[in-house]
């Protein structure tokens, strides 16, 4: 098997040479750097959460890796797939390209919190009722986009659905049911 060479100065050793007792040098690095990192307060699902990360850190990674809200998914990182969609003040955004430093006190809603809103709950129910979901990996984003659509347009046309949902890729191909479920959610009380 191939061996590791660690490139950090003094410990350029192969993995074979590396014993497990070697103190992890990154602790030192980390300590130095943590001092420089700003604390950013994010208003997520009605709570204020502090994260220590650079201002340019995309919201996606702050949510997933620092706050443990793993319902928001990574799919492309370049605003192409919609898997990372969350709401900022009710508007759908691709969290993979929204820096945490740009959000301020605006309200962030994620898939973990969307069920507390009437459109979100309706969308979730319609999704289950019509069994939209296959692997489910894209569906956090789909549900967030659909909930935002219904919040703004309670009775969307096919063209409205196309416009609101075309940014969300589903590799499993659940589009036919997504369209039906949005209409069902719109009809439900």
């Amino acid at each position, binding site marked *: *098997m*191939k*061996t*590791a*060479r*660690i490139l*950090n100065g003094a410990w350029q050793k192969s*993995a074979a040479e590396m014993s*497990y007792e*070697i103190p*992890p*040098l*990154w602790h030192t*690095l*980390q300590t130095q*750097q943590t001092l*420089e990192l700003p604390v950013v307060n994010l208003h997520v699902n009605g709570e204020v959460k502090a994260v220590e*990360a650079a201002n340019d850190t*995309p919201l996606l*990674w*702050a949510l997933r*890796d*620092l706050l*443990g809200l*793993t*319902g928001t*998914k990574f*799919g*492309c*990182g*370049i605003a*192409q*797939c919609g*898997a990372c969609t969350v709401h900022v003040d009710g508007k759908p955004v691709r969290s993979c390209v929204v820096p945490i430093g740009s959000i301020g006190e605006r309200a962030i809603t*994620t*898939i973990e919190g969307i*069920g507390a809103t009437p459109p979100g709950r309706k969308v*979730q129910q319609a*999704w*289950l*009722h019509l*069994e939209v*979901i*296959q*692997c489910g*990996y894209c569906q956090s984003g789909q*549900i967030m986009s659909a909930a935002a659509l219904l919040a703004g347009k309670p009775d969307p046309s096919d063209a409205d659905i*196309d*416009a609101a*949902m075309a*940014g*969300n890729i*589903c*590799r*499993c*191909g*659940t*589009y*036919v*049911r997504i369209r039906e479920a949005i209409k069902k959610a719109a009809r439900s009380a």
Partner: protein
Amino acid sequence: MQSNIECTPMTTSRRAFLKVGTAAGTALLLGFHIPVTGSAAAQARSSFVPNAFIRIDRQGAVTLTMPQVEMGQGVYTSVSMILAEELDAKWEQVALEAAPPNDKLYGNPLFGIQVTGNSNSIRAFWTSLRKAGAGARAMLIEAAARRWKVDANTCHADNGAVTHATTGRSLAYGALVEDASHLSAPQDPPLKDPAHFKIIGKSLQRLDTPEKVNGQALYGIDAMPPGVKFATLAICPVFGGTVGHVEDSKAKQVPGVCQIVVLDDLVAVVGDHMWAAKQGLAALDITWDEGPNAHVTSDTVWRQLRAASAKSGAVARTAGDAAKALSSGERLDSAYELPFLAHAPMEPLNCTVHVKPDMCEVWVGSQVLTRAQAAAAQVTGLPLDKVTVHNHLIGGGFGRRLEADMVEKAVRIAKAVDGPVKVVWSREEDIQHDIYRPVYRDVLAASVADGRIVGWTHRITGSSILARWLPPAFKNGIDIDGVDSAADIPYDIPNLRVEFQRDEPPAVPTGFWRGVGPNNNVFAIESFLDELAKKAGKDPVAFRRDMLGKVPRLRAALDLVASKAGWGTPLPARTGRGVAAQTAFGSFIATVAEVKVDENGDVHVQRIVSAVDTGIVVNPDTVLAQLQGGLIFGLTAALFGEITIDKGRVQQSNFQNYRMLRINEAPKIEVHLIASGEAPGGIGETGTTAAPPAVGNAIYAATGIRLRRLPIDRALLAVRKTA
């Protein structure tokens, strides 16, 4: 879409039982050493554990162990339905958990190893799961009969309880746990008459979906062992290349970067979160040793493949005298080609690993659990029983997670890291270091006389994936997957020869991709059938139908789809219908696509209708969903899918240039199920196989232009403007 996709709602209490994808998912205490049949007496009396799939506790709660992984195909639900049906369990009391790695207990009967793939979960496990359920039911009945001192034949099981018919006495399964544990499992328990199925055949709500609407479902990428660090990697962009020099001074300044791991073929950056790791990786200046493949281009690949396809291959099937028959009647020659494809599951490749001196823990979503475990054992040098694999829900497999390379790479990285590390590939790495659907070239010749095919030769040239992936399955130069749906072509052709010519492309690794061998063969055969129908002067449906006398199930599907799709009714200009028929994966499917080709050569697929006979259906709604999704997957490939190579590298990188079908481009889809009492067929890949030839034939009907390679060539289809 059919209207019958509404499902029985699931009780909320069920959700509490779902234990999928959690760290506890493989903490199955009793599963490891339980033979499928045999005495359960040695087991703890607190539960009744008749076999590796079923555990019933004193409260009557039934826990079913899932030998196959859930990646969207609904297998957790359909496997549970089969077990619960024969067990006569109370559906509301059923909970499930993922099986641990164990080929002996949970190996796929068709592969001999623990594999979820080839659309065969239901086909492969149908009998063994029914027997497991029926055996447990027989033991519970026996336990009750002994308690009552009556003949077991006078008792029956229903809805989680055993009843003595004449006296009306009844005992819930939970009350029989102790007694049943002392009994031996019957070797060959009688199975139910399918006419008496109560669960199988119903569209029950899927067990895995409620936690997928609120962010609670855990995929491999969501694993968060305490103290986990986050890593991302860069593999040498040229296939087979290695790391030359790494200049890391800038990367070390990136806030949150913890460590830089340089291996022979890749560099990984470990950080406090993925962004730090990504930024760190971007700040590295890596010089690669590109190795011998730096000159490979798509052109190299195609030239080699075309040259190989000119040579005769190993004969997979022969009947009559094909050579002689080709010289009679009217002869037509044609060749079809398919490109490399990436899988691009929505969940990018990832694997979380904690290597300790005496053990290794792995969190991953894998279609090959035992191979994932073996890869970690090999890299660490630890024995298998010191490697724990927590399998997770899979955010799309499509064949990509039939490989363990993401595990092997993550463990190599983790060996250099103190504590657990989650290695997440960027989408760019995921697309540029896939294990690709091979390029194929199919050379066909046929002769027609009196409206029928009388002679047929078909040579398939491409990779043998099985030769690498399951070497014993590659025999005498024949890849049984490579010739699947070609050697067993459903049409009644008296003289034919089908050959396989193995040709491995330079540099580019190849693997299974949803639809596997039949994708290629059904595209080539069904496109060619259309060309032959024209040659014979016959309607494409009638031409096929007349040669399907020996395959009545496919003929019935063809008849149904033709009527549902309005075959033969008029359409506007540059709009056409195309048909395709297939017997792949044990299912009989006919499909009609309706497309409009605009002036620019863009193809708008407006409607797809499929008629499906897949034998006994476990969960009808899941079958419809798989067809719908599979058709979309196939459309994406037909309309957009191609991986090209330049300078030994993949040229596509993310969804902006490796395009996916989106909701505004998705057609209306209608799937019609044909009732059948035959053994279940496979369904997960069938739609993917069906869509491309139906679309190609529809494009021909709309424009008169025959496309012989995919993806579609818009320039060919555009209306020519005069200069």
